[in-house]
C-alpha cells in the first residue's frame, strides 16, 4: 500500500474554501478544485444527515460511510489507471461499469455519483434533510459543471450514477440495508443469567438491544466468522475479591473522582447518535479536516474515505458479532446491583451489550488504517464538536486519539476496561484485513 505522508501540524483552517460553496467564483475553479468542493461539500452534508436521520445508529452509519466511500473511489478509479478497483478484492463486488467513449470530467462524475448515492442512502431522512439534499444537488451540479462542455458533463454524471447504482445493487443484500424500528427488534429474548445484558434505560423501544443481528452482515474484508483477536471478557463474579468486581470497582471509583479533563474527554468521544455524527462519523470528520488542512488530492481523498469507511464498517460487524456472543452486562447494571444502587454514570449507557466497546473496536480499526496509509506520528487537530460547544483537541497520532477514545468510555462509566483495551486490539485486527486491499495499480 502506498503511503502518503503529509506535513503534520499545519494550522487547521476552519471553513476552508473547499467547503464554502457561497464563496465560489464560478466558473473559475480548475477541475481538481471543483471535484474537491463536490466531494467535501457532499460529505459535510453526509455528516449532518447521519446525525439527523433516526435509523442511523453507529453501525448503520458505518455502513453508509463504507459504501459511499467505495462509491467515490470506484467512480474515480474507472477513469484513473493509477487506482485499482476493489472488485475482486472485497467480498462479492462485481466489476464496475466501464466509462463510455469520450471525455469525462471527474467533478461531474463525483457529483453524479454522490447525488445519486446520497438520495438512496437517505431516502428515509426527514423533510429538512430532503430539502437540504435538493438544494445541495442543485448547487453541486452548478459547481461541477462550471466551464464543462454540456455533453462531457452529461456523460460524466451518467457514469457517476451508473457507478452508484452498481454499488447500491451490491450493497442491497449485505444484511444491513433495511432498518426497522430504529434498529430495535420487536421480539428478543433476554439471556436471563446474572452476567447477561439487561436494559439500562426507561425508554420503551430500548428494552430490546440494538441490532442483534448486525454481526451476521456481509463484511468487506474480514473473515465471516471468528473473533479477530478478541479474547473473552473476564469471568463474571459478584465476589469482592474477583477480577470482575475489581474491574467494575475501577469504573465506579473513577466516576467519583473525575477530573474536568476526564469529563471533557468522555464527552468529546461520546458521539451520541442523533446528537453527533456518531463514532464512525467522528473519524470521517477527522479525515475531512485533514483534507482541508493539507489540500489532499481528490483521488487520495477518495482512496482514504473508502479505506476508512470499510475499516469502521467491518469494525462494527466484527464488534457486534462479539457483543452478542458474550452478551455482557453494562457497568450501570452491575454497579447498581452489587456496589451502589444509586450510582449514575456520566454518559448515557448505549442500549446493547457491553463487550467489547464498539467505539474502541471501530476506533482501533480507523486509527490503524489511517496510520497504515498516512504514517505513524501523523498529528492533527480535531474540531469535530466545535459547533456543539466542545473544545478542539490535538493529537500527536491517530493511535493516540484511538487510545483516548477508548479510555473515554471508562470515564463515561459505560464500559469496563477490558472492553476498551481489547476492543482496540480487535480494531487493529480488522484494520489488518483492510490494509491488505490494494487501491493503487
Amino acid at each position: 500500500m502506498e503511503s502518503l505522508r503529509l506535513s503534520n501540524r499545519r494550522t487547521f483552517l476552519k471553513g476552508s474554501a473547499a467547503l464554502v460553496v457561497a464563496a465560489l467564483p464560478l466558473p473559475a475553479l480548475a477541475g481538481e478544485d471543483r471535484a474537491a468542493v463536490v466531494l467535501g461539500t457532499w460529505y459535510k452534508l453526509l455528516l449532518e444527515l447521519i446525525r439527523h436521520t433516526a435509523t442511523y445508529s453507529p453501525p448503520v452509519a458505518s455502513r453508509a460511510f463504507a459504501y459511499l466511500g467505495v462509491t467515490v473511489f470506484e467512480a474515480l478509479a474507472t477513469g484513473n489507471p493509477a487506482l485499482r478497483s476493489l472488485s475482486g478484492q472485497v467480498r462479492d463486488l462485481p466489476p464496475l461499469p466501464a466509462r463510455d467513449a469520450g471525455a469525462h470530467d471527474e467533478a461531474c462524475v463525483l457529483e453524479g455519483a454522490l447525488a445519486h448515492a446520497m438520495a438512496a442512502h437517505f431516502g428515509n431522512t426527514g423533510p429538512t434533510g430532503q430539502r437540504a439534499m435538493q438544494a445541495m444537488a442543485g448547487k453541486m451540479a452548478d459547481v461541477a459543471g462550471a466551464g464543462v462542455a454540456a455533453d462531457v458533463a452529461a456523460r460524466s454524471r451518467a457514469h457517476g450514477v451508473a457507478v452508484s447504482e452498481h454499488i447500491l445493487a451490491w450493497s442491497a443484500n449485505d444484511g444491513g440495508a433495511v432498518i426497522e424500528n430504529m434498529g430495535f427488534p420487536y421480539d428478543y429474548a433476554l439471556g436471563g443469567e446474572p452476567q447477561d445484558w439487561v436494559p439500562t434505560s426507561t425508554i420503551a423501544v430500548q428494552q430490546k438491544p440494538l441490532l442483534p443481528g448486525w454481526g451476521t452482515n456481509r463484511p468487506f474484508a474480514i473473515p465471516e466468522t471468528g473473533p479477530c483477536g478478541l479474547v473473552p471478557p473476564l469471568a463474571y463474579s459478584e465476589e469482592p475479591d474477583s477480577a470482575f468486581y475489581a474491574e467494575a470497582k475501577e469504573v465506579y471509583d473513577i466516576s467519583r473522582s473525575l477530573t474536568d479533563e476526564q469529563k471533557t474527554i468522555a464527552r468529546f468521544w461520546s458521539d451520541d447518535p442523533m446528537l453527533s455524527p456518531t463514532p464512525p462519523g467522528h473519524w470521517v470528520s477527522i479525515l475531512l479536516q485533514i483534507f482541508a488542512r493539507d489540500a489532499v488530492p481528490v483521488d487520495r481523498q477518495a482512496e482514504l474515505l473508502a479505506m476508512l469507511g470499510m475499516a469502521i464498517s467491518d469494525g462494527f460487524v466484527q464488534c457486534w458479532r462479539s457483543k452478542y456472543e458474550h452478551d455482557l452486562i453494562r457497568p450501570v447494571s452491575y454497579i447498581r446491583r452489587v456496589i451502589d444502587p444509586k450510582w449514575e454514570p456520566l454518559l448515557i449507557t448505549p442500549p446493547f451489550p457491553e463487550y467489547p466497546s464498539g467505539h474502541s473496536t471501530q476506533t482501533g480499526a480507523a486509527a490503524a488504517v489511517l496510520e497504515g496509509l498516512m504514517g505513524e506520528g501523523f498529528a492533527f487537530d480535531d474540531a469535530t464538536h466545535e459547533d456543539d460547544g466542545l473544545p478542539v483537541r490535538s493529537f500527536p497520532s491517530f493511535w493516540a486519539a484511538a487510545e483516548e477514545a477508548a479510555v473515554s468510555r471508562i470515564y463515561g462509566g459505560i464500559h469496563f476496561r477490558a472492553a476498551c483495551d481489547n476492543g482496540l486490539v480487535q480494531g487493529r485486527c480488522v484494520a489488518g484485513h483492510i490494509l491488505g486491499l490494494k487501491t493503487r495499480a
Partner: protein
Amino acid sequence: MAEGPVIPEFIEETATAGLATSYMGDWQYMVGGGAAVFDCDGDARLDVFIAGGAGAAGLYRNRSDLGGNLRFEPVTGMAVEAVTGAYALDVDSDGITDLAVMRVGENHLMRGLGDGKFERANEAWGFDGGDAWSTAFAATWEAEQDWPTLAVGNYVNRKEEAFPWGSCTDNWLHRPASTDSGAGFAPPLPLTPSYCALSMLFSDWSGKGSRDLRVSNDREYYKGGQEQLWHMEAAPRLWSEAEGWKRLRIWGMGIASRDLDADGATELYLTSMADNKLQVLDPEAGGLPQYKDQALKRGITAHRPFTGGDLRPSTAWHAQFDDVNNDGRADLFVVKGNVSAMPDFAQKDPNNLFLQAADGTFVEGAEAAGVLSFATGRGGALADFNGDGALDMLVVNRGEAAQVWRNVSKGLGGFVTVDLAQTGANLDAIGAWVEVKTDAGLQRREVTVGGGHMSGILAPLHFGIGHAAQAQVRVIWPDGLASDWISANPGTAVVLQR
C-alpha cells in the same frame, strides 16, 4: 382485580360542527398547528382560533347549546395566514381576552374588542413581532408588574437551505416597558442560547412560589443544546449543572404539566418522537430540578401506535392533562402525527387518550372512548364546549380539517369549575394555584399560559370530583396569599375573586 378507570364516551361531530380550518403548508409548517380556546365574545362559551399554516387561520364563535351538539360559526377578520399557533390572555388587563398569534414571519398581538372582534396592537403596545419562525409561547406576570412577560420560542433559520442544522434563532423575552415609557413592552430580550423551542411554560415547578421558564427543544436542529430551565431574574440565566440541572436531549415538542400527586411539585409530560417522558421531581434531590422518567412505569411512553397495525415509532406533539371522566384523576391526551412522510415513523399514528387509574398508572382509552383518529395531528384541546361538565375534544390536523368530539358519557362523576378574577392587573390570576379537596384527596392545578404544542386554553379550570357530595375549593394567588376554603356542590361554577 382492581377496577379500571371509567371509559368515557365521545361521538365525533366534525362533519357538523362547522370547523373548516386545516393546518396547511410545506416545510415551514411541518411543526406548529395549534389552537387557542377561550371566550372571545363574553357569552361564557369557549370559542376557538385555529392556526391555518400557509392557509388562513380561523376564528370560530361557539354556538353550541348547553349540553347539545357542538356547533361553531366562523368570525370574519382573523383570517391571517402563516399562523403556527396562538394563546389567549388578557394582555392589557381590560377584562377582554386578547390573543398572541405566533407566525412564520411577524408575530401579532391582537387586542380583544369584545363580541369576537380584534385589532392589531403591536404598535400600540410596543410589541416587536420580529421576523422568525415562531413555534412556542408562554406568558406570566412577574412580581409587581401590570403587564405580562411574554416568551416567544423560535425555530430554525428558515432561510438556510442546505445546512439549517445549528441555526436555531434566538427565543425572545418581551418584558413590560419601564413605567417611565408607558404601557406595553420593552424591546425583546434574546434568550441566548436558544435551541429551537417547540414548547415553553412559565411554571412554579417546585411549588415554592417562583416561576421559571421551562423550554422544550427539538434536538433535530440544535447543536450543543438540551432542554432548558431559565431563572426568571432581572437578567434571565439558565439553571446550570452546578445547580443540579441534568441534561436531557429529546425531540422536545410539547409540554403538559400537572401536579399529579398533589405533593406541591409539578410533573411534566414531554412529547417527542418514539418515547415520551413523564418527568417526576426526584424527592431526594432536595428541591433541585432533577427528574425521574416514570413514563414506562406508568404506561404512557406512547412510543408506537396502540392500534392500526403500524408498528413504527410514533410522533407526538400536543399534550394535556385533564379529567375526561370526572373521576378526580387527571387523564392524559396526546396528539400524534407524522412530521411529513418520514418512513421510519408511523404514518397511521392515532392520538392517545390515557385514563388514569387509582394507582397512578394510565390505561389507553382512545379507541374505546370513540376518539380514534389516524389523521396527522398537531395541536388540540380538551375543553367543555357545550357547558355540560364533561370535557370535549378538539384536534388540529395537518392537511386535514380540525376534528371535534363531543363527550356524551352517561353517569360520569361530578365536577366543579373554578374561575379566578383579580382587580388591577393579571385579571385571570395567571400563576395562581387552585386546590380542590374531597374525601378522595387533594387536587392541585397551576393556572398557566403556554405549553402544549402551540395550543392553549384560557377558561375556568375543570375538576372532576368523582362521586363526592361536596368539594372544598381555594386559590393560592400568584403573590402567594391563599384564600379560605369554600364548599362547592357538584356542578358548581365557582368564581374566586379578590
